[in-house]
């Protein structure tokens, strides 16, 4: 069975970067509806830093930590800390350099835990958490599958979660002052997170 190593992780981040770049304007547009319209720029900057480190990585645990720090150094705004924390946490949760499905799920769980230390946002608050948490939970529920199947389940859960933000009132960030006026608008952070998990699933398979 295929395992996750540094090389494959690099393929995942490269796919994520290409996908985010292609959708940057769309993400900034979503953000402008309820925030200040810079999410596309911010997430591309963060993923550019992450991917550059990922391509040079040899030890997955070390590389993930470096990716998190690079994202925080080069990106700005909430995205800087949240994406940085995700990768720092993933580094904490990695053991070894050839992960099976359960190891991979554990890595993302540790990432989610670290993000939760930075923000009180929970499911239903119209943030990236609405995509991130379902994605990680889908992995945890599919550790008996192979990695591509598990990553696809995560991607599907993230997409469903992001879509649900359309009906939500924002409790965090700049959108919270809009009250019910944000209903009908997708959260840009949830959409970019779903975009990353979709790309991770595709990127892993592409490298098989």
């Amino acid at each position: 069975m295929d395992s996750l190593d540094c090389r494959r992780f690099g393929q995942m981040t490269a796919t994520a970067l290409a996908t985010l770049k292609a959708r940057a304007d769309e993400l900034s547009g979503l953000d402008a509806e309820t925030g200040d319209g810079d999410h596309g720029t911010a997430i591309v900057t963060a993923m550019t830093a992450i991917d550059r480190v990922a391509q040079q990585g040899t030890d997955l645990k070390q590389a993930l930590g470096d990716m998190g720090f690079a994202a925080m150094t080069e990106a700005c705004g909430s995205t800087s800390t949240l994406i940085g924390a995700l990768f720092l946490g993933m580094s904490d949760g990695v053991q070894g350099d050839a992960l099976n499905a359960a190891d991979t799920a554990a890595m993302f769980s540790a990432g989610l835990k670290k993000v939760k230390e930075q923000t009180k946002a929970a499911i239903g608050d119209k943030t990236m958490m609405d995509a991130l948490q379902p994605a990680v939970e889908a992995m945890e529920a599919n550790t008996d599958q192979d990695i591509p199947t598990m990553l696809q389940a995560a991607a599907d859960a993230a997409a469903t979660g992001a879509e649900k933000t359309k009906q939500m009132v924002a409790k965090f960030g700049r959108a919270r002052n809009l009250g019910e006026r944000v209903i009908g608008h997708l959260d840009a952070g949830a959409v970019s997170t779903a975009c990353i998990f979709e790309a991770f699933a595709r990127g892993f398979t592409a490298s098989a």
Partner: protein
Amino acid sequence: MTTQKLTMKKFLNDPNDIAAELLEGYTLAYANKVSLMSEKIVVRANPKPEDKVALVTLGGAGHEPALSGFVGEGMLDASVVGDIFAAPGAPKLLEALRAFNRDAGVLLVVLNHAGDVMSANMAMELAKREGLNVRMLLTHEDISAGLDTPDEDRRGLAGCVPLYKVAGAAAEAGKSLDEVIEIAERFNKQMATLAVAMTGATHPQNGQAISELPDDEMEIGMGQHGEAGGGRTKILSADETAEKMIEPLVQSVDAKSGDQTMLIINGVGATTLMEMNLVFRKAYRLLEAKGIDVVSGMIDEILTVQEMAGFQMILCKLDADHIPLMKAPCDTPYWTVR
């Protein structure tokens, strides 16, 4: 990014370089007062002695002259700048905290916005691990979400600027970190800000319009970045607007007859000084009628939001400690007292 199109009527180069280029221009223009310690960290040209508390702040660019405009003698020691409207990442902030770490201590002033607070918390965690002598103060004086809103849901607007003045003067006077924090926190609790907007702003990196308003409407409660907030209404006169804004501000700081206050009208970009003078006049007269003494006034652009039309009205109740600190000398590019 290559996909970006510049369709705005703004004088720009590469949108990704705006923050770095503006700081370069700024520090060249005011080289006698400020300089760049490293990319995106603005510091005093003449450093404060090591035996005094250092004041550091952080925030996004695009709000000029804030926040770096207030680096200098008697106010900030360092301003750590992010990207347009976006906080700097924690590693950049840590770099500044390390540089200013000292026995006297460092006070990090943070405006309550999600990104700024997250970067600051992460940097504080890293600073603690290194044993740096840093404490953090959060400003949250915006009352647009209502007077009963908990502090964590109130944003930090332009009130940070008079707070830098008070805390900076206390630090300059040789007060201890505990004393500086106590004085600044007291000031923090005694100030309130309300913002009003007539038009939205354009994000200079991507041309996205932020919170457009219909031609005949204005909005009281619009935030620092033009995030839509509180109440939309048809356009009111200068007097009516001042009247609508001063009441909740007075209530928020509990200003009473005999109290001494500072009143600031901060233009956010496209509103003229002419209009701001009209608004100040009415706000002053309303306070006067209540017996509230405005001992210090300011009509200026201290924290802007691109070409947004509107202003922030800031009311600060001053106590016996704060008045001399407000009058103490300072020498920064955008606030000077001699």
